[in-house]
């Protein structure tokens, strides 16, 4: 029952992400636009390129969707609304999301097209930049909660949210999450003006619909992860827990989608350099500071 409810909420979330994304681009709220776009995609032909790696081509969109759903499985929306409260939850989110990389590599490799292939490569470089900045801030969060249980992580923020307790970790995780979801300005694998769609350029019809759904689910899952790690999850005054979860997740989603509209795409070399020269030392500093706080504060 919970599983079905969460999956429905995930679908609703993905739909809202699409609405918010249209809003960030056009400045208009068009509630029905994603619905029409989705149906239209289903009505179009879904063709296979001439010399594809057929298995990769077919599997990639599905794998993207599955990894987003798996990560969503350990995200608690209220104390009880969670598919499975794994003892390794915080690690599991990361494990599931690593397969986003595998999916994009397959999508880049499968169609045998230059743009897609470069898109796949670029995302691999991107992973090398962001991966540590996902894992290391989570480590600091886990240190404070003294547990990998995602519910325990939320409970640990009852007094002070992690965004206040470890702001450095929040900034790093937020940036890395945007890079993981290949949102602008980190949309290197799909870059419209540079690769004409990159990894998704050769997908059409139903396959494209699955790919895009996977991407939307990924964005909402990452926003939800940000909320439970740093924004106190379902906690908040007056409103019921589910409402707080929903509000926080949507605000984080909108912020993630908006930021990229106001700056050009980052250079891949800069992304790698900054992540390793500044990001990783800062993440280590964050772990150290949180360690001191955990020991000093009662």
């Amino acid at each position, binding site marked *: 029952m919970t599983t079905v409810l969460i999956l429905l909420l995930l679908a609703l979330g993905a739909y809202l992400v699409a609405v918010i994304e249209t809003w960030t681009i056009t400045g208009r709220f068009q509630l029905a636009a994603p619905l029409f776009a989705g*149906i*239209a995609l289903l009505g179009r032909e879904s063709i296979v390129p001439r010399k594809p790696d057929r298995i990769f081509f077919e599997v990639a969109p599905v794998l993207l969707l599955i990894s987003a759903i798996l990560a969503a499985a350990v995200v608690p929306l209220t104390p009880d609304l969670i598919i499975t409260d794994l003892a390794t939850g915080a690690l599991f989110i990361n494990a599931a999301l690593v397969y986003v990389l595998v999916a994009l590599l397959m999508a880049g490799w499968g169609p045998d097209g230059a*743009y897609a292939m470069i898109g796949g490569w670029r995302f691999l470089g991107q992973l090398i930049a962001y991966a540590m900045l996902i894992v290391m801030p989570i480590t600091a969060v886990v240190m404070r909660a003294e547990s990998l249980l995602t519910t325990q992580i939320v409970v640990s923020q009852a007094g002070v949210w992690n965004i206040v307790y470890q702001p450095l970790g929040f900034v790093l995780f937020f940036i890395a999450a945007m890079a993981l979801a290949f949102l602008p*300005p980190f949309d290197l694998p799909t870059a419209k003006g*540079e690769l004409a769609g990159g990894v998704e350029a050769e997908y059409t019809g139903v396959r494209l619909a699955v790919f895009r759904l996977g991407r939307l689910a990924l964005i909402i899952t990452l926003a939800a992860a940000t909320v439970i790690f740093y924004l106190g999850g379902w906690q908040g005054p007056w409103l019921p827990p589910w409402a707080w979860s929903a509000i926080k997740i949507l605000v984080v989603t909108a912020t993630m989608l908006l930021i990229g509209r106001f*700056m*050009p795409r*980052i250079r891949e070399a800069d992304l790698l350099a900054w992540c390793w020269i500044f990001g990783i030392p800062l993440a280590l500093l964050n772990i150290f500071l949180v360690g001191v706080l955990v020991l000093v504060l009662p």
Partner: protein
Amino acid sequence: MITGARQGTLSGLRRLVSIAMARDLSTFLIPGPDIARAHGLDFEAAGLHPVASPRHASVLLIVGAIPPALREAAAIIYAQMVRPRVLFALGTETLPPLPAADVVAGLSQQDLIQGIRQLRSAFAEGAFRPDVSDFDAPMLHVRIEYTCPMHPEVVQSEPGSCPKCGMDLLPREAQATAGHTHADHQEMDNSADRQATSTHDHGTHHTMVHDAPLEYTCPMHPEVVQREPGSCPKCGMNLEPREAQTEPTHDHHHMTHDAPVEYTCPMHPEVVQSEPGSCPKCGMTLEPHEMQDTQTQEHAGMDPHRDHSTMDPGDMAFMSMIDVTQDLPRSGDGLPMEWIEAPFGPFFPGLPGGLLLTLTLDGDTVAGSDARSLIGNGDLLLQHLSMDSGSFVERLANRDPLAPVAYRLLACRALENVAGMDIPADTACARIGALERERIASHLGWLALFGQQTGFDWLRRHAASLQLKFQQADLKQILALKPAIQALTKRLQRTPLLESRTAGIGQLAPDATLRGPVARATGISDDARSTDKTCAALGFTPVSREGGDALARLHVRLDEIAHSIALIKAAGAIELPAPAHVGELSGTGEAVVETPRGLARLQLTLEGGQVTATQLDTPSTHHLTLITPLIEQQELGDALVIVGSLDLSPWEIQP
């Protein structure tokens, strides 16, 4: 009813799907959004949703008349679109080899909106049809031809054996117009019932012969060598470009298949040569052994058909990367990687429409490039034309939709120069007003394209809407828009990542061949307006910036927008130049105009009032040659920023 309908009867669920598709018009724009805006069209406000790949589009929108080479490219784009698809033409009906447009409308926002309404109803009613026909055009055919693996010059249309060596000929794909299209990017129409269609790099194709001294070989089957790009007849892989060999013995593995013996070092199996000698690594005498066909391949174990168990393991040594990659072309970082040739254009979303940039990519680094315009606007350069002066002015003005006023002014000034006429000061001022207004619009259009290329969505939308406002603005409106420009400039100065994206990219040294903003960004204050006495009277001073990189070019354009507003204010009027009546005049004349892209010069000869010879010199023609050296060894994203920062107009490039 639409010609590109998908097969099926329109009933039940499909009707619903058709209605949804009519609401979601994903559009691929030809030649590009820059041209649409130049015609004053705001297609996004009209309800079209632009997409970057023809694969994702259901509407192919053609704006204005386009030359034949672009139409051929457009036919390939059309074939890449999946059904149902419609063809929507604005201001033109000459489309072959494209099929007739489903909806035709005029070149105005009103007509566009009207056309979209028709388009929606056509979609809702005709997205599915029981009988659909394939779209077919000569450039879409993949013909099978037969060639000898040893003698690539032997090509015939029937299977058979090679007249030179008697080997069986192998089939491969060829083009109907041999050498004019890229096999890899060849598209076949995706008929409604056929699932697998040919594809490669959509959005793009290749229509020119390569004159670079390259030959193409299969990385897996080095015996396959041909002059044209294509795919390997044995395994279907894309052939790799490499520099043609001048000495056959040099590239031993690939070329000299008749050499029966090769020499290798017992200690260093990667040392293989065709002549006896000593190992360059250890000095041991090389041992001869019978050359196996494509020996390196076997070491890497690449041939699945060979019986490996018969091979002596002692002969194999270890699989050596040096062995496998030693004959591959190498880029600056020394890391041999897959080289792919990818076309960017002529309708690439981040480049000016009509520009075809073919990049040889080494990983994502540019190893080689070729840039050309597919517009082919050469008809006005004929030495023997005869045209009355009025229509000449119109022709020149319509030649470049990105700078019509500047070229109209150029033609008018040249005619006046022949006639020795003097223009009244107030007319001259009003002309400056029109020219500067176009400069503002052009620079804003460039900003919008830059925003599109770099995914800076706010800039794309904001600059595009400002451009549309400026295009037809009168004096009062322009002055009212001044704060918006100041806000834009301030915003760009505060934009994160913008500087890191452009600073140090595409560095140019001061050079006399540079023109316009590109030159002024290197610190040269070279501007044709400085010598114009009307401009001088209006208080014109040229803008210049040090740096010479993409960031400096961006700033020069921003500064110029502000200066142009000041000039328009000083000029106090805006009026399009009108051609003078020259009567039955004969003589030669010359004129220069500082177009938005730099100085353009026109020389023309009049005989009895008829224009008989012209010579035109345009900035983009010069700047096109900068591309190849500038983007060499640059990362792909940087290379595109460099090409974009030059602000080329493919329409003014001389063939």
